[in-house]
């Protein structure tokens, strides 16, 4: 399994990006590649542009979506399909900026209101025209307890969503929220036809009924368990992103080896999230090319129990210092990744003004690999000989290698680690069910953000937040996050966020391990995609066409 899936089924934190977004036109710098500092791989912004249209291509997913209703789309498979079918008010671009999409402009006349001007002349896939009513009905679903969608958290400060003109929608907040608008470039900002929502009801987004949106591809068919087919939408409003392929077929292949074999035989033309242990094999494969792009994902050990030995901050710091993170990147991630000193990537800061991003990075406490110093630090806490339980699941070599390395580190600082190997289903349950987390001190996750903002991660560690699994609580941290959420001024927003990050990285409620780029494999028939984590919301498949 690659990251995310069952094992560390990533709960993506949502981080939102640049407020300054609207200004930026989509800049496609074809073929620029820049090596990541001192690494054995390079990041690619764009693959060679497509030479022309193509009839069809096949794309692999590591799992089948359970629904393509945007309200339940909170995982890689549904989001990478929907990104091409349904559009949001704003668009998250491959360079992690945002730009207008179904909203031509937006404004923030008072701290508690966001006004969206809706694009005229946009057609849904069934031919009907987009109106403000469609936007209102779509956004309101996120507030509806009967829908019980996955995206209620970005809406936690929303009071109401109303039509304020034929093509204008106003969102009223209870309290200022600087992240709300950023989420309008992700699933929470998705717009579906109000008539379709009403007609399909509970069946909306299921294999039989599909969806009716405005994107460059329209839902065509979904054979449960096997494949989902999209076809080009000829009335698409944005000439820049008109689909080059007449059809895309997504196939669901959960076994990583099966996926890699399908790449090698050409049965599948491409896929995101290549299993790291196949990097070597695919780099030298004549079947196609492996690319790496910008990501917002960090692999972390979640400290789940603060009542045990890890309750002492010195022990958490010592453990992090004793983990050979460079070794993990080398052995577990095929050398493709960087040791992380924060729970978010530098990319999350790209929306911050001036040198804020660089400053935040410089100010971070570092935990260089030093087992001797770590042992001494842990000795001060007097936890020698105490047991900790590290949960893992036998899903891929990466997970196993990381878990072994963490256990080794625990031994090095005098703890008695016990590895608890649990099934994939149980592992997934760790992220949602407190009962499943009983008796576990540490577990691994690959956590990404859905917006370009570190707050997406850090808001999840506030006291009582859903993903604050260990029940960590720090008043200073909570106050800093609240201040950052309420701060519209980019400089003030960044400053408060940095303060929260400082606290978190000193206290280590989670232990950051490493960041890794997005990986994508393209078979020899196709090209044109821009490798970036934005594939979860950006219509990436529209840019794929035939190779010269």
């Amino acid at each position, binding site marked *: 399994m690659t990251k995310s899936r069952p094992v560390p089924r990533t709960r993506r934190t949502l981080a939102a990006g640049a407020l300054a977004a609207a200004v930026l036109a989509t800049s496609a710098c074809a073929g620029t590649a820049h090596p990541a500092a001192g690494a054995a791989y390079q990041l690619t912004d764009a693959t060679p542009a497509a030479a022309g249209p193509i009839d069809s291509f096949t794309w692999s997913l590591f799992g089948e979506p359970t629904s393509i209703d945007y309200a339940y789309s909170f995982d890689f498979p549904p989001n990478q399909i929907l990104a091409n079918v349904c559009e949001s008010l704003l668009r998250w671009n491959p360079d992690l900026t945002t730009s207008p999409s179904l909203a031509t402009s937006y404004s923030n006349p008072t701290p508690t209101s966001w006004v969206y001007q809706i694009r005229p002349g946009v057609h849904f896939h069934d031919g009907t025209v987009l109106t403000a009513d469609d936007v209102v009905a779509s956004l309101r679903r996120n507030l509806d307890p009967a829908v019980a969608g996955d995206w209620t958290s970005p809406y936690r400060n929303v009071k109401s969503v109303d039509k304020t003109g034929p093509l204008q929608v106003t969102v009223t907040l209870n309290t200022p929220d600087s992240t709300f608008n950023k989420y309008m470039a992700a699933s929470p900002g998705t717009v579906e036809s109000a008539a379709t929502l009403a007609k399909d009801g509970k069946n909306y987004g299921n294999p039989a009924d599909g969806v009716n949106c405005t994107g460059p591809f329209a839902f065509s068919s979904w054979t449960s368990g096997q494949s989902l087919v999209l076809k080009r939408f000829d009335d698409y409003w944005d000439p820049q992103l008109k689909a080059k392929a007449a059809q895309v077929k997504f196939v669901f292949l959960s076994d990583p080896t099966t996926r890699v074999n399908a790449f090698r035989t050409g049965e599948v033309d491409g896929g995101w999230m290549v299993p790291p242990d196949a990097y070597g094999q695919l780099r030298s494969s004549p079947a196609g090319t492996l690319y790496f792009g910008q990501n917002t994902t960090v692999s972390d050990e979640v400290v789940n129990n603060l009542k045990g030995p890890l309750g002492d901050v010195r022990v958490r710091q010592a453990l992090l210092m004793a983990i050979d993170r460079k070794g993990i990147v080398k052995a577990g991630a095929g050398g493709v990744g960087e040791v992380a000193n924060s729970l978010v990537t530098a990319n999350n800061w790209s929306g911050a003004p001036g040198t804020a991003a660089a400053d935040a990075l410089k100010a971070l406490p570092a935990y260089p690999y030093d087992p001797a110093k770590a042992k001494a630090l842990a000795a001060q806490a007097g936890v020698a000989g105490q047991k900790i339980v590290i949960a893992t699941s036998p899903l891929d070599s990466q997970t196993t290698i990381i878990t072994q390395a963490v256990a080794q580190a625990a031994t090095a600082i005098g703890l008695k680690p016990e590895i608890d190997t649990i099934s994939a*289903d149980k592992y997934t349950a760790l992220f949602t069910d407190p009962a499943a987390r009983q008796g576990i001190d540490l577990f691994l996750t690959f956590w990404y953000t859905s917006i370009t903002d570190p707050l997406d991660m850090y808001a999840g560690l506030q006291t009582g937040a859903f993903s604050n699994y260990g029940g960590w609580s720090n008043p200073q941290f909570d106050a800093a996050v609240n201040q950052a959420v309420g701060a519209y001024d980019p400089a003030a927003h960044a400053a408060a966020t940095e303060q929260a990050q400082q606290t978190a990285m000193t206290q280590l409620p989670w232990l950051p391990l490493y960041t890794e780029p997005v990986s994508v494999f393209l078979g020899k028939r196709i090209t044109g995609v821009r490798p970036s984590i934005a594939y979860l919301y950006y219509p990436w498949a529209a840019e794929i066409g035939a190779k010269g």
Partner: protein
Amino acid sequence: MTADVTAPAAAANAVTARAVTARLASVAGSAVRRLLGMAATLLVTSFLVFSSLYLAPGDPASFLVRGRSPSPQELAAIRHQYGFDDPFPVRYWHWLDGVLHGDFGRSYLFHQSVWEVLWSRLPATLLLVGVSTLMIAVVGIGAGIVGALRNGTRTGSAVLLLVTVGAAVPSFVAAIMLRSVFGVRLGWFPTIGNGAGVLDRLHHVVLPAIALSVTFMALVTRVTRSAMLDELRREHVEVALSRGVPRPTVIRRHVLRNALGPITTVCGLLISGMLVSTAIVETAFGMSGVGSLLVQCVDELDFQVVQAIVLLVVAAFVVVNTLVDLVYPLIDPRVRTAGGAR
């Protein structure tokens, strides 16, 4: 001479006709009894399946609210919406009532009726199990016969060796080897998917079916071989052979026919057991079938689908074994007599 032969023959025919009628009546009677037993078994199973799933750890409501912290009111609303707050007997009754009307409920996971979810996966699994069954029957029994008849020769030893190797290869190992050799390296067979159209589907199912049935083929070969050897050593066989009855006739009439009993029983058990062993093979070949669906739905606590699949598998077990029981007396006269006396 001719007349001498004809008269007893006519009498024999009359006797046979009477015997056939009696046999049919007895078979019909036992069939009805068995069908009733089958229904009872299914009812008991349905109760066990339903209750055991609700005793299993994990709360489907917590799955439904994944990704966020619901307020107690929200959680209560969800539990009410899905009927999780009804008392157990009420829930069981609702479910059973639905099942009896052909309604297995709605999948939490797929936002679809369980029947639709199952229907999209059943054909692939049935084809896989069907082709595997055919392979087991033809190859397994065939090799067993050869092994018994050529016992002590080189061919016989070769069969024994293959059986030992085959029985030791788990299906996931077979899947990996078949896929990399015949799929990736030689490119003779597709490595993923179910295929479309009859020939393409068969093309897709060959490797998975071999992977699934390799162990079972070996088992059936072993059982067939030893059952045949047992029969070959019997006195009446030796007598028939010494009296000059042609060897093929003896083998067909006495040896194989008598050996078929244990062979059928083993085949029946294996075939119904196969339904639950398809998950690994389906995953390895990127096929979509009931096995992989079961694993996924257990993972995600989608109880409605799990219940339907388990019930389906139990039903298949019961039906196949009932069929075996019904066929048994038709092929083995000794059982028939015993059955008739009952």
